[in-house]
């Protein structure tokens, strides 16, 4: 008599055989004690395993898991490995921008130098340069798909809270040392803070906008802030922010230097 092979019997247990095979095997098992014993041994093993309880982490272990993950993230602030300089959801990310623009040294962030749009010049001569630099940055494209209208309120509140709300520029800002000619600044001497400019620009835009990125730049020789926002024209809370507003504003009065560009 031909015996069933073990793999067939195991598949039979899992109903992984055709109806025709199933009938044949059942017939065989009725008359073959050896195969029947094997089938029942396999079933016992499967059942014994299935009766094992689910083992979950206990409360201390659950705590340890969270601690380990958060600790790892603290040591490597940007998990995915990309150096996002765009305004991130965390306060630490926002501080990074403030640090960069105020050139305060060594706040313990991983990059000591001012973060920048990759490959982007700090000096823009034309609006086209500004647009193509911003649109060409993959991190901006990333930010574009990430947020929804419902995220905007929270982000605006974070920005308001985390950036210094002073209306006069702090002393650190004028000591920026980026080597740029400070043409108009000589007459006035103070520059507006990033927070001030963000707030004043956001107030002047009809739609709720999500601040994505900011960096100091010059535009046609004038010191400026380059500000990038995401927005949507939809009123649906779940609508993705799939459009950009790109602003270049002067640092004295946050006056737009370009015709603000939308995408």
């Amino acid at each position: 008599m031909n015996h069933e092979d073990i793999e067939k019997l195991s598949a039979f247990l899992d109903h992984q055989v055709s109806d025709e095979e199933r009938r044949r095997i059942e017939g065989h098992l009725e008359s073959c004690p050896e195969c029947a014993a094997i089938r029942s041994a396999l079933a016992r093993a499967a059942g014994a395993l299935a009766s094992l309880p689910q083992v979950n982490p206990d409360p201390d272990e659950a705590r340890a898991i969270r601690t380990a993950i958060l600790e790892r993230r603290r040591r490597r602030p940007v998990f995915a490995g990309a150096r996002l300089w765009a305004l991130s959801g965390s306060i630490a990310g926002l501080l990074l921008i403030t640090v960069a623009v105020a050139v305060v040294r060594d706040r313990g962030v991983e990059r000591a130098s001012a973060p920048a749009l990759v490959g982007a010049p700090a000096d823009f001569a034309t609006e086209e340069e500004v647009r193509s630099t911003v649109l060409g940055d993959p991190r901006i494209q990333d930010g574009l798909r990430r947020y929804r209208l419902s995220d905007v309120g929270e982000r605006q509140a974070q920005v308001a809270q985390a950036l210094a709300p002073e209306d006069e520029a702090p002393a650190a800002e004028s000591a920026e040392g980026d080597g740029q000619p400070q043409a108009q600044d000589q007459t006035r001497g103070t520059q507006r803070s990033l927070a001030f400019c963000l707030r004043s620009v956001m107030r002047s835009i009809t739609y709720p906008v999500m601040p994505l990125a900011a960096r100091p730049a010059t535009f046609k020789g004038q010191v400026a802030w380059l500000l990038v926002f995401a927005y949507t024209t939809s009123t649906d809370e779940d609508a993705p922010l799939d459009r950009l507003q790109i602003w270049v504003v002067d640092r004295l009065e946050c006056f737009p230097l370009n015709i603000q560009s939308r995408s």
Partner: protein
Amino acid sequence: MRIERHEQARDEALVRAFAADGDTDALEVLLRRHEGRVYGLAYRLLGNRPDALDATQEVFILLFRKARSFRGDAAFTTWLYRLTTNVCHDALRRRARAPQPSARLEAEAGVTFDEAAEHLEVTDALARIPIDQRTVLVLRELQGLSYEEIAEAVGIPIGTVKSRIARGRFALAGELGEPAARPERLSREDQ
């Protein structure tokens, strides 16, 4: 409240929310959904709680580090099982000897002493079968995966899944003292 909002979110979105933005509410929801299955699998593969804990931490840290390379073409849990299996197999290679289950009975609520003793016996027997067979068995019997899901999670063909499950059950039956599960029966087939 953000946790409620996150509870409807897809796993991939939660991973991104934590990996890119440090959203700890998203992390919490993700862990509540999945830490049990990761830890449970690791526990059955490695045989003791401390090793299962280490493996679980490693799996989630890897998950966030690799957030970008997950393309969403497999189910999220399949990918999670793949990570867990790989982490556990690496741990066993480093350990380079059979897993040592804890000698004490695991404290299990609502179980009689007899049941707990049987669980221990099965756990010991499971620890003695080869890791390849143990892996597919645990995924099948404890995590309830289909043959296809196991094939995807482990990265092997379905035929190999069937074969390992069969041999694994046979070997486990032998370790549990089933007289019909004689090794010679298996080797007779292999000829």
